[in-house]
């Protein structure tokens, strides 16, 4: 056989950074239609933080209604007569609010923040490549996500308003406009998510190929930083789960547009089939939203504790087993949908088994902190919050996994508390940790640490004041997506608690202004970032901040794993992955022996 073909994007033809060579790309190629993974990461950051803001504002409206039912929002009349006449939120609009809050937060904020931002920022730098395997596909991925977001936003402004069938879009409510009263909005919802699916798919193909094939010499699988392991597993989940959602969405869209009846029972359709297809995607999706956060947390915790991550290999195995188990538990979302109790028991068991790898991760994080020289910098504080909040969110998950308990708390505020402990207390704190940690590398300036700490403390406190009482509301029977709890006599006594949560939520929202200010102000006026502000080990920290187009001046060589902190006998408490052993002092050989 002849020699291997050489292709564009082939590792051997990477375009490394040329030191001293001026970057002569035009403004458009450099910042708008850029193929540079770092720029695309920053673009995703701006896009998804914008949608985080949108989702947050929707949450404020929800909390306003629940805190003070029927009270006019000051200045709320700008929402229009069809949504909030005189500033009082209509029940139909409230349904749209909860639907779109969930949709924006899951698909347009947390998912692109974790996968789009950190995937793009970190993968090529952490594996030691000049860029992604397919840079133009990467650019297409971002520019497909933009129209998807705009379509979703536009659905607020069409007749009938935005989708109001819940972010899970349960059929037949979602399949028939006659039932939900939403005509165009639900169609746009489907189209937007189908388009977004293409974006995610392009990203996943790129991530997997880059991680498998573009690792620098010496970057063996077990030397990969844990965020890369997490993003690799996540990309596989995205690759296999998103097409199932796309298929389901297409069937749903056909029901609404060309008059099929896949999910409409009148002509033999199966509403329950929607739930199966949706959750077959939906449960892996849950792990898409938490695995990269776990990776970021591992990176920051090890760095902040100045200790190697405890049980690196088991962290990897735990990620893999969580991802695998995530495929066989979707039925636990459907215990109350009518299910053979025997089948329910198998789903209960498989779900509870996930607690094992999750607990391995938590104990390994604690083991990492144990007797560490802990530096409480802003990223570290957020990463610590992740661990604490993930424990609470994980434990409340076990409650719902157990079928007898779930009968009682299903579809109550208990699930709302649980999902927010995992997605806000978990994912979002890890995202904050990641942003504080890597902002200097990609924007060349430090975020202000004082403002960062104030933002962290306020967020942490108000976050818990908002979501912890929701457990109690749920146990007291308050249903999720409820427009006005006072309609029920048994819930009316809990109005003071709802008002308390709403006050805390408004303060939580206000505290995010500090982050916004810090972000925007530091972009222009922050302290100039040194190459390695955190004394960290992975490859990006040996490059200038921000790294030039093409990242490395030449292909780097990797000598060790990413968590060699406080190595005995080494002259510093960190040891970069690409530092040749000769520079590392005379005890190198002995050290390698210990690690072998």
């Amino acid at each position, binding site marked *: 056989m002849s*020699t*291997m073909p050489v292709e564009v994007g*082939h590792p051997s033809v990477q375009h490394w950074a040329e030191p001293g060579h001026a970057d002569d790309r035009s403004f458009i190629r450099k910042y708008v239609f850029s193929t540079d993974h770092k720029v695309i990461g920053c673009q995703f950051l701006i896009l998804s933080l914008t949608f985080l803001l949108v989702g947050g504002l929707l949450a404020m409206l929800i909390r306003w209604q629940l805190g003070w039912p029927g009270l006019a929002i000051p200045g709320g009349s700008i929402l229009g007569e069809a949504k909030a006449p005189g500033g009082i939120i209509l029940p139909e609009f409230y349904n749209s609010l909860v639907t779109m809050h969930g949709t924006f937060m899951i698909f347009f904020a947390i998912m692109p923040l974790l996968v789009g931002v950190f995937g793009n920022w970190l993968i090529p730098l952490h594996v030691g490549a000049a860029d992604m395997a397919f840079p133009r596909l990467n650019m297409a991925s971002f520019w497909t996500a933009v129209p998807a977001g705009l379509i979703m936003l536009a659905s607020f402004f069409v007749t009938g308003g935005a989708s109001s069938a819940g972010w899970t879009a349960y059929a037949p409510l979602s399949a028939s406009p006659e039932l939900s009263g939403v005509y165009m909005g639900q169609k746009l919802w489907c189209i937007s998510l189908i388009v977004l699916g293409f974006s995610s798919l392009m990203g996943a193909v790129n991530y997997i190929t880059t991680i*498998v094939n573009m690792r620098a*010499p010496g970057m063996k*699988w077990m030397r990969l930083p844990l965020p890369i392991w997490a993003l690799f597993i996540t990309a596989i989940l995205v690759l296999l789960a998103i*097409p199932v959602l796309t298929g389901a969405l297409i069937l749903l869209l056909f029901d609404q547009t060309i*008059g099929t*009846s896949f999910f409409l029972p009148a002509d033999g359709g199966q509403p329950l089939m929607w739930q199966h297809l949706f959750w077959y995607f939906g449960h892996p999706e849950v792990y898409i939203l938490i695995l990269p956060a776990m990776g970021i947390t591992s990176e920051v915790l090890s760095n902040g504790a100045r200790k190697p991550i405890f049980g690196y290999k088991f962290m990897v195995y735990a990620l893999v087993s969580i991802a695998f188990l995530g495929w066989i538990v979707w039925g636990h979302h459907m215990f109350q949908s009518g299910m053979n109790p025997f089948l329910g028991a198998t789903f209960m068991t498989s779900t509870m088994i996930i607690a094992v790898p999750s607990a391995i991760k938590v104990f390994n994080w604690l083991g990492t902190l144990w007797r560490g020289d802990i530096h409480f910098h802003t990223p570290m504080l957020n990463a610590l919050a992740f661990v604490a909040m993930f424990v609470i969110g994980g434990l409340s998950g076990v409650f719902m996994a157990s079928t007898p308990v779930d009968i009682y708390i299903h579809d109550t505020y208990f699930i709302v508390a649980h999902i927010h402990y995992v997605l806000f207390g978990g994912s979002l704190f890890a995202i904050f940790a990641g942003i504080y940690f890597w902002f200097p590398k990609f924007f060349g300036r430090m975020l202000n640490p004082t403002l960062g700490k104030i933002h962290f403390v306020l967020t942490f406190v108000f976050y818990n004041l908002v979501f912890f009482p929701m457990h109690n509301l749920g146990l007291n029977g308050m249903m999720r997506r409820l427009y006005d709890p006072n309609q029920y006599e048994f819930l009316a006594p809990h109005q003071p608690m709802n008002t308390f949560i709403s006050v805390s939520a408004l303060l939580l929202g206000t505290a995010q202004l500090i982050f916004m200010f810090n972000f925007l102000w530091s972009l222009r006026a922050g302290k100039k970032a040194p190459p390695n502000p955190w004394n960290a080990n992975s490859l990006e920290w040996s490059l200038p901040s921000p790294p030039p187009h093409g990242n490395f001046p030449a292909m780097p060589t990797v000598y060790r794993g990413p968590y060699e902190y406080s190595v005995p006998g080494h002259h510093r408490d960190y040891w970069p992955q690409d530092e040749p052993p000769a520079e590392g002092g005379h005890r190198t050989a002995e050290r390698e022996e210990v690690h072998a």
Partner: protein
Amino acid sequence: MSEAAAMSASRPMEGMRVYNLKLGMWVFLLSEVMFFSSLIGAYIILRFAHPEQWAEPNAVLNVPLTGFNTFMLICSSVTMVKAFAAIEHGDQAGLRKWLIATIILGASFVGIQVYEYIKLGHEGFVPAAAAYAAEGGPLYGSTFYTMTGFHGAHVTIGVLALIFTAIRAFQGKYSAEDYGGVEIMGLYWHFVDLVWIILFTIVYLI
């Protein structure tokens, strides 16, 4: 030069002995498997729940015609392999000839499918439940058009990609050293062919 020697000479990196484009295509095809699985899974659920909505295949569908169409698509996979084998040995004329043959077969498949759709539509076999007038029930029509339609869209995209590949072949862009574009085209084409064999079996034969 042996393959292994070429690998170690051109890429001292960690990774698989597969070039990026090929790995990327395999990964993409995995997601395609999941997409068609979701449609086929929905089909199975609906058909088991409502067997009465499915008529005898021959009563509504023209099975012999589609059987011939299936044969053409399988032949197009053979011609695609021929095209790949040609360029592997640097045979430019062979590559062009076999790519053209594949395009003709693929386009004919789409053409016959369009003809089939038009004919079935006139007989009241339509996707919309309200307008369904053929034997069986509306789920029969809905699932038929969804599954064969998305497959047809994949063949159409494949034919367009084949035309793009053929243009590059006529420009002499491929060689015995650089045939990745032809190989990943072939991977996609064989996948689409394979999906059709499954769809033909469960939609037309069973």
